[in-house]
């Protein structure tokens, strides 16, 4: 069969139409659709771990909250040990009374420094110097034992004991303590 010029032209036209159709279909319709599908699929897959993480975060927090009353109790107990008001007003008096109850008079307490310890959020650390001009060693040791038992927030950081010049049985003692107070 011999094709005429007109037929060849038609075949060429048909081929061109075919390529045009294929090109338009893939580039203008199918590929953008598949790309969007892929993007949606990625978003869905991405949301999975995020949702799981959010759920586990909520579960963890609930678990922590169930254990929180114990934590709050410690903080509450510590706060109960701290009197209200300025520490400069109550601490020296408290120390003087404490030592007086154990027969040690003329105790002077001075504030040395004040600092914020990052470990104890909501509290500040005050350093005091307690001067006891005349005291027997045994009496002092007994008072220190009672102080360490009665005042859990107080920590003795240094102690200077010097024998008296006039009476060797009596010592001049200077102790440095730090205590926690509310911020």
């Amino acid at each position, binding site marked *: 069969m011999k094709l005429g010029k007109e037929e060849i032209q038609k075949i060429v036209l048909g081929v061109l139409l075919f390529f045009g159709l294929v090109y338009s279909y893939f580039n203008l319709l199918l590929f953008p659709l598949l790309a969007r599908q892929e993007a949606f699929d990625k*978003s869905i897959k991405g949301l999975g771990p995020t949702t799981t993480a959010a759920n586990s975060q909520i579960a963890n927090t609930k678990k922590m909250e169930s254990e929180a009353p114990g934590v709050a109790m410690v903080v509450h107990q510590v706060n109960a040990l701290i009197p209200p008001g300025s520490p400069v007003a109550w601490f020296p008096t408290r120390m003087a009374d404490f030592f007086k109850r154990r027969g040690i008079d003329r105790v002077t307490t001075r504030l040395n420094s004040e600092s914020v310890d990052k470990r104890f959020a909501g509290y500040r650390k005050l350093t005091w110097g307690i001067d006891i001009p005349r005291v027997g060693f045994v009496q002092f040791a007994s008072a220190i034992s009672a102080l360490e038992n009665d005042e859990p927030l107080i920590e003795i950081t240094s102690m200077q004991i010097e024998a008296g010049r006039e009476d060797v049985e009596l010592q001049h003692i200077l102790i440095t303590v730090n205590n*926690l107070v509310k911020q």
Partner: protein
Amino acid sequence: MALHLNLYHEIQKTRALKRRDPLKISLYVLGAIAIAFACYYVVQRIYMNTLVDELNQKKAAYDKLAPLAKAAKKREEDLTLKVKASDELIHRLEGRFYWAPVLEQFMSVVPRDVQVMRLNGEIPTEGIPRCVIGIDGLSAGSDPRKVAEQLRTSLADAFKTKFKKVTSTFRTLEDGTEVVMLDGKQVPTATFAIVLQLYLVDPEPVKAPTRIKR
């Protein structure tokens, strides 16, 4: 054989030509392909819609969860801080250095032929947790240096059981110039300064210096 003449051959030829018109055939083929493509596109479009629905559902669920999770995270941070502070408070309360047992032990160790003139105790804020006690005093006896040495060793022995490590060293030990009365006798004296270190944790062993190969 009879002669057969086809007088319609031109008409038949035209019809045949019409039947195998390439443009028509190609249009049919194109149409078929276009239908197949359209079907595939529709299927993909339906799948796409299900994906959109699924994403919207998941997004809506996440949008509900996200503020809750954010609040939970903040709450967890607050709780963590509180737990940490509580632990630190407990550690401070329970990990304090207690001086009363040290003073009690000290009283039991110091003999009657030693007079302690000065005692300085300190908990250094830096370095290995320990208590450093400096003791200045006067020992008396026929051999006052021996008395001071006995005090030094007694101190180390007395505290050895209660602390991880104890060191007791002389800073100074000198013969005294004064003579004191002890049990009705005049005896010579020695002045001493002892440094007593009570370690609350095991100090790290000191590494031996290594030789550099040349």
